[in-house]
């Protein structure tokens, strides 16, 4: 494999930093400092991405509704979310009577920790991955399922009927859609033969998984997008917080920063779903490359990998918003019908199809 020059990557910087630290202090402290820095960097990216997403969503939403959107705070309203964040930080946390105190205050942390844990495993670029588990995909599905406990506890401990109904709906929805989301990812694991996220990116160097497994991959991709969208409680699947019937669903009683946690986690879950889809189906941070076209590949490598990653993720987020503002909300029975009568059976057949494709050598990389 030819080595391309990558002038804008962070790998050189991080390696230099690591060796510099190790030269002045023992390994233990060097690793400790690096861990702290990585943690802070992740938290900062988490917050910044959430703020950017909120702004982007409001803008895109406005465009879909033939409006302009935020345009007062700063040029084009770019500081709107900064203002919102400041507002939410200084808002009073209202103490509600007759709630289960412990669970009420613990619930937002469940949600934010679950989305943070998933966020930490995402490969943002070449060498920009905090932990690279060899069971990456499985880890992501496992950890993201913790968030629902927060939703259920929040709904129950609020001592409010609306919250309770919202939480129950959310639970039913999440448990169902997690299944088909996991199966869709499993289809791609069959194709690539690895669950490691970095390994998955590497196998997609010349051919994205979306094209590699053609029909089966495409179906899995669509199913993953639908179920991921449903897992984040957004768009046509936002019946846990259907404001016309349940005020705000499970977070009705929350205010101030606690509500901010729910809000933040919702946006970040959207990002995480899009990022996983980009990594698993669209090649992650790997630039578009064509075998043998060295000059072309070199030009593609000049664009740093994190730009590729955020570009692909951004496209998927846009699709998610597009869907959100196109379709009316589903009823609960329609929601469960869609999952159990359509997505899940199709998914099971699809896995079988993928196994046949891989075993009989009909994937694109095996044909050509």
């Amino acid at each position, binding site marked *: 494999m030819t080595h391309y020059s990558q002038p804008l990557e962070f790998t050189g910087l991080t390696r230099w930093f690591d060796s510099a630290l190790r030269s002045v202090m023992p390994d*233990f402290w060097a690793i400790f400092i690096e861990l702290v820095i990585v943690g802070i960097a992740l938290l900062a990216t988490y917050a910044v991405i959430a703020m950017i997403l909120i702004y982007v969503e409001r803008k895109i939403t406005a465009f879909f509704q033939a409006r302009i959107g935020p345009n007062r705070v700063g040029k084009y309203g770019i500081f709107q979310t900064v203002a919102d964040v400041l507002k939410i930080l200084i808002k009073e946390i209202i103490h509600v009577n007759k709630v*289960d105190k*412990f669970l009420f205050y613990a619930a937002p942390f469940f949600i934010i920790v679950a989305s943070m844990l998933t966020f930490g495993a995402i490969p943002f670029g070449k060498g920009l991955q905090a932990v690279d588990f060899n069971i990456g995909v499985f880890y992501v599905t*496992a950890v993201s399922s913790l968030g629902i*406990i927060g939703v259920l*506890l929040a709904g*129950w401990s609020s001592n409010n009927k609306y919250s309770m109904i919202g*939480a129950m709906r959310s639970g039913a929805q999440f448990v169902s859609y997690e299944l088909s989301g996991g199966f869709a990812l499993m289809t791609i694991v069959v194709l690539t033969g690895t669950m490691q996220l970095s390994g998955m990116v590497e196998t997609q160097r010349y051919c994205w998984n979306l094209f590699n497994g053609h029909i089966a991959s495409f179906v899995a991709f669509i199913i993953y997008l639908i179920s991921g969208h449903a897992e984040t409680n957004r768009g046509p699947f936002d019946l846990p917080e259907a404001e016309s019937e349940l005020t705000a669903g499970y977070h009705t009683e929350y205010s101030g920063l606690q509500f901010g946690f729910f809000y933040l986690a919702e946006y970040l879950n959207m990002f995480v779903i899009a990022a996983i889809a980009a990594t698993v189906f669209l090649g992650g941070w790997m630039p578009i490359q064509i075998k043998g076209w060295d000059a072309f590949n070199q030009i593609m490598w000049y664009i740093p990998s994190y730009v590729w990653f955020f570009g692909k993720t951004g496209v998927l987020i846009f699709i998610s918003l597009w869907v959100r503002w196109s379709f009316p909300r589903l009823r609960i029975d329609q929601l469960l019908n869609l999952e159990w009568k359509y997505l899940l059976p199709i998914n099971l057949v699809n896995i079988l199809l993928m196994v046949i494709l891989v075993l009989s050598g009909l994937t694109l990389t095996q044909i050509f």
Partner: protein
Amino acid sequence: MVELIIFYVLAIVISVFSIMAVSSKRLIRSATYLLFVLLATAGLYLLLDYEYLFAVQTAVYAGGIMVLFIFAILLTHKPGDRVPNEPKRQRILSIILSVAGFAFCAHIIFHNINRVYQLVPANEINVKQLGMTLMGTEKFEYLLPFETISILLLACMVGAIMIARKRS
């Protein structure tokens, strides 16, 4: 050093929350404490560098079974109510039983701890090996139990549907 500290933290979390899970008077809080115990156990697996089991523990127990637990508890009559104390005789009996069980397990673990790690292969068992063993038909391979369990689960599902379906 660090591993030892993490181990002690996890151990304390597990033991404290286990006791809280059985001694809490509110059903839903017990479930939450149990969740913490399961998560800390997953942390122990991570400490052992056995990531696969960590993910299984989180997905199956914390993410799956606990959600169903909480769901089921929420559907019960009054999940937040304080449960009245059991009669004194029953409490003493249960304490004696649990101490006896603990002593039994501790005895076995204490006397066999040196033998266990000789039996376990030193390198990590990866997912592929696991799958192959689960699906194999050779000696020490588990296709038959696997299929038997799946039939059991199928029977459970059929039973659930029978109970839940509308009676005409």
